[in-house]
């Protein structure tokens, strides 16, 4: 294990160091004889400008990045850029185009009927099935402290337009938008006296033992619909118990240490958006380095957002409005392009963090795959065709990168299925709604 303190500082943006807890490989990882694979979903809303996004010229492996992806130049060999992947399943079902896109993006399922307005007389509900992060966590059952991790950067609306992760049909998993809460949840116990933590665990365990019996007693009495509601609660309690056990049992990973303590932010702030994003990315990178979780989503804002990039002087219009700019409104299109370029810069920064963590002969990035996505292809038409999907990282060698892959309208369920295979769920025959899945895209 060769660890350069300088590399660490560089990779983590020169953050203030607490006491580094330099330790050996994650125990869970070592038991498998390999480094674990991690999946991160990196989301930003309202689509992009595909004509400024798609790589230029050349071949599958020899191409030039276009302006909106230019910030990723230093990671070009870590990327797979997709053209011609459609999200047809999002053009089915009730609700408006943003809600349909959000509900479908990671589930590949048709949105459920429900009662959320989206300017919509029919109204729509939550997603119709589990998202890829949750589904893989179920299938692969990682021995990590957190089964999955959901982080948000001003993804603050409490509606389908702000949810991408789903435990199952009708069960959105909300993101944590406050970096300080993420810090406390993940790292507060790290430097505690182990004896104090052990005592706390014993107490918590005995309380949860009592609580668990309440579910059993209630189940016998409740109506079936109510039982389903309670089952979600019971499952979350079981997850909490597993998380508590793992918290004490699993030693930290190679570069695992306490990251910079974030301040308390106003999670709705526009001015602090970039700063909140930086903290969330650092926290997530460290959670991966520590093998605290293997399946995570990082959600930048929400569909139909009213978010202005005031931190870079864009005070006039919010992202959703800009995404609707006419094709010939040069000034607004330029602002929308700047916002999209900023998201590419954030992804590049996040990949820097992963690449700064050595794992064996490679880095954390080699054992991770980041899926970058949006719920629309284009804002001013609400198109779900030719979606802007990018993969970054090699998922332990299962994904061959440095490629621009051009398809002719394949469903995005195929890409999600290919991703499941790359992550180790090779037995999966289909993903999401079967009518919209015609076979995995081979990512190798």
């Amino acid at each position, binding site marked *: 294990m060769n660890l350069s303190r300088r590399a660490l500082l560089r990779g983590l943006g020169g953050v203030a160091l607490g006491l580094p807890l330099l330790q050996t490989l994650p125990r869970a990882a070592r038991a498998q004889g390999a480094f674990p694979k991690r999946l991160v979903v990196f989301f930003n809303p309202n689509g992009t400008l595909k004509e400024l996004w798609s790589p230029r010229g050349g071949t599958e492996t020899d191409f030039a990045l276009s302006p909106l992806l230019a910030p990723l130049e230093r990671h070009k060999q870590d990327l797979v850029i997709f053209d011609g992947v459609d999200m047809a399943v999002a*053009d089915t079902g009730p*609700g*408006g*185009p943003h809600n349909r896109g959000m509900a479908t993006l990671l589930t590949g399922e048709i949105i459920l009927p*429900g*009662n959320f*307005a*989206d*300017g*919509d*007389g*029919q109204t729509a509900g939550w997603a119709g099935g589990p998202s890829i992060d949750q589904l893989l966590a179920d299938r692969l059952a990682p021995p990590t402290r*957190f089964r999955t991790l959901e982080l948000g950067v001003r993804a603050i*609306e*409490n*509606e389908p337009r702000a949810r991408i992760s789903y*435990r199952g049909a009708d069960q*959105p*998993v*909300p993101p*944590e938008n406050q970096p300080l*809460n993420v810090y406390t949840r993940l790292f507060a116990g790290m430097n505690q006296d182990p004896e104090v933590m052990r005592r706390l665990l*014993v*107490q918590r365990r*005995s*309380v*949860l033992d*009592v*609580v668990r*019996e*309440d*579910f059993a*007693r209630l189940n016998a009495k*409740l*109506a*079936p*619909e*109510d039982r389903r*509601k*309670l089952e979600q*609660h*019971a499952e*979350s*309690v079981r*997850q*909490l118990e597993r*998380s508590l056990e793992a918290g004490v049992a699993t030693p930290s990973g190679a570069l695992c240490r306490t990251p910079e303590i974030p301040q308390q932010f106003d999670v*709705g*702030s*526009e001015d602090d958006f970039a700063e909140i994003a930086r903290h969330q990315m650092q926290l997530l990178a460290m959670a991966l380095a520590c093998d605290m979780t293997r399946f995570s989503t990082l959600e930048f804002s929400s569909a*139909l957002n*009213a978010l202005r990039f005031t931190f870079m002087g864009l*005070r006039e*219009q919010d992202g959703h409005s800009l995404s*609707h700019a006419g*094709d010939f*409104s040069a000034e607004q299109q330029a602002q929308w392009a700047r916002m999209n370029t900023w998201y590419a810069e954030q992804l590049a920064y996040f990949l820097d963090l992963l690449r700064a963590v050595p794992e064996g002969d490679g880095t954390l990035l080699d054992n991770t795959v980041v899926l970058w996505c949006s719920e629309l292809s284009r804002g*001013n038409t*609400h*198109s779900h065709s030719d979606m802007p999907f990018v993969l970054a990282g090699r998922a332990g060698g299962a994904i061959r990168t440095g490629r621009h892959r051009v398809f002719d309208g394949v469903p995005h369920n195929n890409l999600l299925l290919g991703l499941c295979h790359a992550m180790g769920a090779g037995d999966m025959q289909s993903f999401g709604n079967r009518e919209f899945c015609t076979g995995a895209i081979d990512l190798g």
Partner: protein
Amino acid sequence: MRPHRSALLLACGTLLAVGCASPPDAAVHEADATPGGAAPAPVTTPPTEPSVPATAASLPPPPQAQDHCDPLDLAPRDPGPALIRRLTRTEYNNTVRDLLGDASAPADAFLPDEEFMGFHNQAGSLQVSALHVEQYMQASERLAATAVARLSALLPCEPIEEGEAACLRTFVESFGLRAWRRPLEAAEVDRLVSLHDAAATMEPPRFERAFQLIVQALLQSPNFLFRIEVGEPYVTQALGAPAREDATRLKLTDYEVASRLSYLIWQSMPDGALLSAAEQGRLGTREEVAAQARRMMDDPRARPALIDFFNQWLRVDEVLGIERDPQWYPDFDPAIRPLLAEETHAFIEDLLWGSDRDLKALFAADHTWLNESLARFYGVEGVEGEAFRRVAVNPSQRAGVLTQGAIMAVTAKPNMTSPVFRGAYVRERVLCTPLPPPPPNLPIVPPDPDPNSSTRQKFEQHSADPACAGCHSLIDPVGFGFENFDAVGRWRTEENGHPVDSSGALSATLDADGPFDGAAALSRQLAESEQVQRCVVTQAFRFAHGRSEVPEDLCGIDSLYAAYERGGRDFLSFIEHLTTSDAFRFRRRPAAENAENAGSTP
């Protein structure tokens, strides 16, 4: 800044015409349009003559009278599909305040409650994710640690004299009844008291440790976090007939009714009087329930809880998060935001508990509530001091809540007003007929800003597009009526050097159609509309029951509306009536059980 909900109501700065135009199979507008998409329509939509016939059919049915319902309201009603309800953050905070005397509002740190139809208290939507249960655990630990410091105040017994385990048992029985809002079963008591054994191996002092663990277990239980409802068989006996058990419905237990009352009227747990009424079986009749409801609405706890219905329905508190572009609103001071919210809160409180309680005034009132700072903001003279008081408004400018700053601000953009957001707000919130979504794959481009024209001119040019006109004829002529109010709710008569034109028209309503001049006239037109008043009742139903209505509810809502009108649209007597309805006092019998017991006589 909190995003506008209007951004969601209207997917875009503007709407396209698919659902709104006709005929549906007309020629498509763009090469990549979905078949059956937008239909170009002639540009004949001056504000006073909207193209109603082509558009009205695409709206959902408005709230209206139900011909098939029993007008005498005597038949047993299907109570509708009521899910058990998780405590909202507000309910959690209020409950631990009333249970433990702990006013620390721990739920403020919880994940926000999911929204549904604009309300934060909808049973189907509220989740219990893994992060939620972590937060519940931590809150219970903090609450228990605070409680143990006040042990003597909370304990009904003396552990040294009576023995620790015996005293804990007494505590579990009395405190558990309040925490779970029903008496605990013997097995439940035993299980909780067993934590005294577990505490024996933990850090001393053992009794205090056990006490804390018991409080934690009670507060992390689904019996605390959910308002559990099981119900009981409902047996009736007509004169001279055999007793008969209701085959499709269960009656809520008296304890369950107590919780329904307390969480509706107080957003908190039942008090001692409700719990003893439940213990004595005195919540079984309509009269008994109504008497409790009346008592509770006189309690100060009822005020924030019932005002919260209007808050959520009308999106009042969203004003707390608005931001304004300093280029366009250089003198906007964020400190005004809570005052704008307070104006509407005070106005509503007076409408509910004041001397004139006809809710027509919600939209038609000739007054508002201001203090000196807010009056100065509006340019109103003669209001002194920081206490809010009732102030007459100029009836040609303002009438009711829609013309108050909070509503005008939450339906505007950071740099300009939005006739589209405002028109859509009236359609969805006030008329209960939200607009259809724009179709896929059609260009939806809002007007380009132009300092040389008024907002109205920009939107009129824009909506002249035939593909847009269908839906926009339903929205813009309503929204234009508010153009005398800027994006923070101040009166204006010109914009960018252009005189403000606030003439408009309502269309595609059951009974409120017609031209108007300005928001005050529009508001009075809305106040007189039966569709609007039925919408008030429908929205209150959603809030009260934590769910949206289903077809089986429509007769019940019809009766609620009749009672609302009989009571002169007095909200408190309406709520009293609602608590006596079958939907409030019964549950559906689960299907399986239904089949087994159908028609059986005990």
